[in-house]
């Protein structure tokens, strides 16, 4: 009965590695086609992301965003829900962060503001996921459709608020005033002795992101609620048989998912920008889908996938700088190829790999 299977390590490590390798191979061909040396390109990309302190700082900063949005998608995946509204939920989450910071930054130190900002981000993100969740649970409106529509509604809402309500007085910029020290998270290199990330904005949010990973892992695999989420995701009929309410699980899971997406805003708004501005999410919510797919919806996998995408963002920027022939658009092509192979074509190499393991394991079982 073990036919058609492969060891877990192959599923969790080998498969993603092969997918990334394939993406890099095709990217290499593209680089070659425009007359540059692909090996140089890879060297510059990796060095740009990991070869110097400031590069590492930027990589970690981007990775923090991807961890939050990746976890958001992963939690929903466990319940077989496809939340592609991370973009909008993170955007609205920024409102929660900004309100906390604007209210408190002049009166209290950052460590008082932080828990409220995190809670605000999660609450606003969750609230933005709530309506699609209820529509799915009670009316059967598919979350893929509703969450994507809510991304657009979020964008319009935030522009309206930033232009008409929250903009700094006398300014034409659609952004709030800059937070004082009470609304700014400390940078990682100020906390860690002997580390200097230069001008990179890697901040305490990275630690919060790792805690969110731990939270997600405990939730999914160690709690009764997580058991219900996984049962519902794997077999809805069995879930009903077991007395698990589909309505409740759909709503609760979407709230948690939206909350995690919303928390991404803590990194951008309180950790780096120190003000609320338009379009600060700039695609991190969507890339979270690829991160979750690549990380196999497992928090540890998501950390690695997030760092990979952080590397592509940071190293890609370096590459565009060092190799003028490789434009910013080329970097987007490379990132898209990784998403294509790790996300959309996730299972392309699987049958071949399973066959390979079948061949490798057959002599072993014959000998037994």
């Amino acid at each position: 009965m073990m036919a058609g299977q492969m060891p877990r390590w192959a599923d969790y490590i080998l498969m993603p590695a092969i997918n990334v390798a394939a993406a890099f191979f095709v990217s290499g061909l593209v680089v070659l086609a425009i007359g540059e040396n692909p090996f140089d390109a890879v060297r510059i990309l990796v060095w740009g992301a990991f070869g110097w302190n400031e590069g590492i700082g930027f990589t970690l900063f981007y990775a923090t965003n991807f961890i939050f949005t990746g976890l958001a998608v992963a939690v929903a995946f466990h319940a077989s829900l496809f939340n592609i509204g991370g973009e909008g939920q993170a955007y609205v989450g920024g409102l929660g962060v900004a309100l906390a910071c604007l209210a408190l930054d002049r009166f209290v130190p950052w460590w008082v503001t932080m828990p409220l900002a995190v809670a605000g981000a999660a609450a606003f993100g969750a609230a933005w996921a709530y309506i699609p969740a209820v529509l799915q649970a009670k009316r059967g409106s598919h979350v893929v459709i509703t969450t994507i529509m809510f991304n657009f509604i979020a964008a319009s809402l935030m522009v309206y608020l930033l232009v008409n309500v929250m903009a700094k007085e006398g300014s034409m910029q659609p952004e709030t005033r800059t937070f004082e020290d009470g609304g700014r998270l400390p940078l990682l290199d100020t906390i860690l002795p002997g580390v200097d990330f230069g001008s990179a904005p890697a901040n305490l949010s990275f630690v919060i992101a790792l805690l969110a990973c731990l939270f997600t892992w405990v939730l999914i695999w160690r709690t009764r609620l997580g058991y219900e989420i996984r049962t519902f995701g794997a077999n809805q009929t069995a879930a009903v048989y077991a007395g698990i309410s589909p309505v409740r699980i759909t709503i609760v899971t979407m709230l948690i998912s939206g909350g995690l997406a919303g928390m991404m805003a803590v990194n951008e708004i309180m950790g780096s920008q120190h003000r609320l501005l338009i379009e600060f999410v700039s695609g991190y919510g969507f890339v979270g889908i690829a991160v979750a797919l690549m990380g196999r919806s497992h928090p540890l996998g998501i950390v690695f996938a997030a760092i990979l995408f952080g590397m592509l963002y940071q190293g890609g920027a370096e590459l565009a700088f060092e190799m003028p022939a490789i434009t910013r658009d080329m970097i987007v092509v490379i990132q898209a190829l990784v998403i294509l192979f790790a996300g959309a074509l996730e299972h392309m190499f699987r049958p071949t790999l399973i066959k390979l393991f079948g061949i490798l394991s057959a002599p072993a079982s014959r000998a037994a």
Partner: protein
Amino acid sequence: MSERLAIELEGIDKRFGAVHANKDIHLKVAKGSIHGIVGENGAGKSTLMSILYGFYHADGGEIRVDGKTVTIASSQAAIALGIGMVHQHFMLVENFTVLENVILGAEGGARLGAGIGRARAELKRLAADYDLKVDPDAVTGDLPVGLQQRVEILKALFRGADVLILDEPTGVLTPPEADHLFRILRVLRDEGKTVLLITHKLREIMAVTDEVSVMRRGEIVATRETSKTSMGELAELMVGRRVLLEVEKTPAQPGAPLLTVEGLNVRDGRGVEVVKDVSFQVRAGEIVGIAGVSGNGQSELLEAIAGIRPARSGIVTIDGTRVDLAAARRDPAEIRSYGLAHVPEDRHRMGLVTRFHEYENAILGYHRDPAYGRGAFLDLDAIRDTARAEIEKYDIRPPDCFLKTANFSGGNQQKIVLAREIERDPAVLLVGQPTRGVDIGAIEFIHKRLVALRDAGKAVLLVSVELDEVRALADRVLVMFDGRVVGERAPETAESELGLLMAGAVQEAAE
């Protein structure tokens, strides 16, 4: 005897990864005979037939059809060689007419009109030759299953089949329909066709075949002339040891009612009444069996009592607790808490999450139980201990609670569900199709467990489409037809009488 052979298999071998599904199979099927192939689930019957029908390619060995060595690369190739297959699950387009279904894939050219004309004449001839009468213009979905199966047979014959493979053909039929099918098979044989009948029901083998081959663990362990063997011998060959075909039990000593159902009405998703005013009782220490052809409301009955499916009206009393099933929100967890356990009909769809580890399924439905954790958290050690204890007690193999549930055999999966439900010591147990897709060894074990539960003073409500099973296990038999209980009988009642009730030929008020 120098009879001509329709099919000859020489040394057929097939592996799926580490699984050796067919080992060096040798099989000779005489022309103009009915040849049965019996074996437990997973014995390799279906794999062998799939090789013959071109779904799989054998790793080794030779196939000869009419004495000529052939390679069968696809089902088209099989059809061209005159091999036809009637699948267990019909391959029919329900809203096509019989005629349209028969010509589907063999339309004979781009212009439909000419093909249809020829097909109509051909169908008429086939109906006359083989006593296979079906109205060619009837909409297939409106026909009873017995007639739908005839359409499948016509499809194969229309394509010029000389060898017919039937895979578990009686699973969906009433006893009278099955008898009719056997008559048709005999006519086909007498007209020179060859029939390969795959089944796990020994009674059918004895009733209709000329020769029978027994498969066990991928091998053909014996071939016998049917007239010179017995059910006992065949069962022993299938399992590899002696088996009890009868369930040993003492007469029931019923006590007070533990489950009372009053005035239950259920509508399905399309608003059709599927359970109509059903009332009955199950007392402590008895097994009440519900017999009926699949699709006459039994499934909905079980699901409504368990709180899974909403009822329009109906009161159940479980071990003294009255529950109004028509109340707005019925929760299976609540019903369970009153002392009702439920082994659902379809373990893959409902009873198990096949993607989960075995131990995770050991608490499905009981995951809120304080024994399995504190507060919001699960105590995995406690859950695994429970799972290991059940694995030991129910002899679930392989004994590994970390194994994915999908990797257990059907019988062992059923034992996982049964152990979970019985070990919570319920007052009432609902059991649907307890031995569907379960091998003989496990059937024996499951039947013993159910009788033991009865003898421990619990109430058991059994639903099964296997009439033999209901008669062997139940102390009282209720027959359901078209959503109603149409009669109550003692299990010793003649099969023909129960068969008539099941077919709706006799209607009477229950009790």
